[in-house]
């Protein structure tokens, strides 16, 4: 089975969607159940800044990767079952 390397990005994107849901729930809790405060603002700023940095780092590190590179999986599976 051969597939291009960019297929790896799909589960990553799925993770990011789930991540965004949890992030929104957290932010909703902070906005809905507490008063605006410096501590809340600072921690939210730290969170969003950190996320932006990690995503930027991921993007930077992914630039030299050839995402069309073919990945071969289970290529020896047939020979495995041969006597």
């Amino acid at each position, binding site marked *: 089975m051969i597939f291009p*390397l960019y297929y790896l990005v799909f589960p990553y994107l799925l993770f990011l969607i789930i991540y965004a849901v949890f992030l929104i729930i*957290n932010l909703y*809790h902070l906005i809905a*159940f507490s008063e605006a405060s410096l*501590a809340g603002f600072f*921690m*939210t700023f730290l969170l969003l800044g950190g996320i932006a940095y*990690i995503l930027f*780092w991921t993007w930077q590190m992914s630039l030299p990767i050839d995402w069309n*590179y073919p990945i071969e999986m289970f290529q020896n599976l047939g020979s495995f079952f041969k006597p």
Partner: protein
Amino acid sequence: MTYSSLIHQKSYEKIVYNLRRHSINFVPYVFFLIILLSMGAGVYYFLKTLFPELFLKNNWQAAILMLSSVYFLAVWLFFYTAFIDYYLDVWIVTNDRIVDIRQTGLFGRTIAELDLFRVQDVTSECKGFFATIFNYGNVYIQTAGSKQRFIFINVPDPHHVREAIIRLADEDRKYHQGQG
């Protein structure tokens, strides 16, 4: 959102205390975050040093990058969730009642109220090395007729809070007796 609207503050009611756990209680989470981030970075450099050939292969490089990104993002959100859990545990003391708001994880929330005139016994406790140094501890509030008691966990200056609650409870009792 303000605490006044959160507790549906009555017209004659005044918020006296707005308590949450002492900030020193959040420090272990910061240490835990540093350890988790260091572990991630450590594993990355361990792989890069011992198995440099992995980083020359396109597929391995991509897999390691995706996994690292997922790991660091998850650690970061875990830290923020811990902060939310810490920050949204609030005890509000007014001149009429005590409101106990507890956040348990992301999807659990408990709000309990107690009329001040029902307060019968208040105990403050400051136990342990750090609690003594940083002056924080528990305040136990026992009500008449109820076995359950309110606990303010690791709040700053617990002895002062106990005195204030006893005084407020006395005032509220007098007010209710005057009305009756």
